[in-house]
């Protein structure tokens, strides 16, 4: 995946202001930044929902401008906010989005069961999502993104506001998917999370990428990588003023 000099303004406000980065096949890439940094806007542009004002996007060799449909057939998106049908059962949600991703009815059902199992939700397959806990909904939200076996997965803060067990389950699953060859773009503002699973991270603030490297290299710049945390680096780079 290659993004080159992406710009996006809402009115006069420059939400994304010249972002360039690329992700290698099979890599877990972390996009870090305080609230309002422009992470979600970047993901929406990369996932074909939002047209950039300028800049270039190439995913799997397809250009966004001319081959958005081809791109949509190889990506999976787990949006920051829950995006599912609460009135339907977990399995019906999964099958529906599986079919939207191009699976036939048989494959959609098989994959749905497999992914629910992955998320530890196979027992609740027939349960209405509305009755699920916050952590379970988050896991379903992620499981839906896996339907159709996308080559590139966009995960926008998939672990926000959930219990440590659900969070741990999600980490392990992401690492498991990577082993199967999936490429992942992961946004978060939990630094230890990024340190744990990302090969490379970019730190974003005010619509720009202000640092990009392996977590180890970034920490080395501040001192001994064993003593410094990614959070120290983050605060040093983005400052201590409050964001919202």
């Amino acid at each position, binding site marked *: 995946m290659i993004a080159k000099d992406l710009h*996006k303004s*809402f009115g006069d406000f420059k939400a994304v202001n010249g972002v360039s980065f690329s992700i290698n096949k099979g890599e877990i890439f972390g996009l870090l930044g305080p609230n309002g940094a422009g992470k979600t806007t970047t993901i*929406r542009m990369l*996932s*074909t*929902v*939002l*047209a950039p*004002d300028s800049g270039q996007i190439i995913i799997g060799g397809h250009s966004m401008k001319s081959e*958005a*449909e081809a791109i*949509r*057939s190889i*990506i*999976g*998106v787990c*949006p920051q*906010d*829950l*995006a*599912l*049908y*609460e*009135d*339907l059962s977990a399995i*019906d949600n999964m099958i*529906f*989005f599986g*079919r*939207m*991703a*191009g699976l036939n009815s048989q494959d959609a059902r098989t994959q749905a069961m497999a992914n629910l199992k992955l998320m530890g939700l196979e027992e609740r397959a027939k349960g*209405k999502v509305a009755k699920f806990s916050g952590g379970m909904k988050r896991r379903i939200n992620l499981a*839906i993104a896996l339907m*159709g076996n996308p080559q590139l997965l966009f995960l926008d803060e998939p672990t926000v506001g959930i219990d440590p067990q659900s969070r741990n389950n999600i980490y392990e699953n992401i690492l498991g998917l990577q082993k199967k060859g999936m490429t992942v773009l992961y946004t978060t503002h939990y630094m230890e999370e990024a340190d744990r699973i990302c090969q490379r991270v970019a730190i974003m603030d005010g619509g720009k990428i202000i640092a990009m490297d392996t977590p180890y290299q970034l920490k080395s710049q501040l001192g001994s990588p064993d003593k410094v945390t990614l959070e120290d680096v983050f605060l040093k780079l983005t400052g201590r003023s409050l964001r919202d």
Partner: protein
Amino acid sequence: MKRALLITLNEIRLFIQDKGDLAFGILLPIVTFALMYGAFGGQTLFTATARVVDEDKGAYSTILINQLDQVQGISIENLTLQEANSKLERSDLTLVLYIPAGFSDTLASGGKAELTFMQRGNGGQDGQILASIIRGVAERMNQQFQVAYQVSNQVTNNLGNNVVSQGRIKAVVAEMLNEENKQPTVAVTEEVTGGSPDFVNQYVPGIVTMYVLFSLTLSARAIVEERKRGTLERLLTTRLSPGELFFGKFLASIGRGFLQTVILMSLAYAVFQVFTPLSFLASIFVILIFAAAASAVGMIIASVARTEDAATWIGVVFTMLMTMLGGTFFAVTKGSVLEIIGRFSLNTYANDAIRTVINSGGSLSGTGRAFIVMGGVIVVGLVVSRLIFRAVPGGK
């Protein structure tokens, strides 16, 4: 296209899942129908059961009972004298017709027979109406006897005995009375104001099409609901194209509006007898096309509305305006300004088409213009809604 159908199926599943929505969707037509029935269906005929104690069981008592039975709205229940007495005693009944033994014999021999009303008090209001109906029937029998008797007397007096047989006289008199019955000298016809079938014909189509217009608001909300759930953005990152999304929603909206309206129309069919089987089918076809046109207009609203409230209100205002201009609640005078404005209301065309179909007993001829207008709205609605749809500002 297949994905569009999947969207439709999903929409239907969501509709069924929501028990409240489902109950509302099915109950609404039934409640609407009950209201229609209350407004238009109240003008039924007087109905009553005539209780008869027939101690005679002869030829003439049978004729009397048969003639009573043939009066519209009157049914006969036979009682024994004991039953009648005990029921009257317990106030179960207020009026019984008593035909005494020998009734037929007396009449046959030219004597004067008697009928008795056994009644509690004045027999009650229903009893009095019933009694006067029975009197009418008895009176007619009486006149027939009188005529037959007089004719027989005249013939015998003028021509002497046995020149013309009594049987022949009876037959000729009966035949002439029959002729007279067919074309009575004093005929009574009914001219009804307010409750005539035409009244139902005028308003049933309007209410039915108003009903279809509800689907306009439902389809207006189709995209906004998806947006609010967050599923719209997710859908747009899949292989589903916005065109398929719109078409799927469009089909779901037709289905829902159509289903509800068919429930309503079936009830109207069963009770009001507004339709013949053929005009019922033709009307359903008009409704299907009209539901599609209303849904297509709804999709235009869906493509611009940003909030559920906005979608609902625009939809409701549209529905109200079209319903009023379409002559649902009042007949629009030909050539009036209102009629000209009404030409801009979609359900004017649907109303006209249904009225035409009802009046012609199911023929679609003369509905061409209505179908062209509705078809045009479908095409324009789908194309325009797709063209102006932007999922997110600056988005696709």
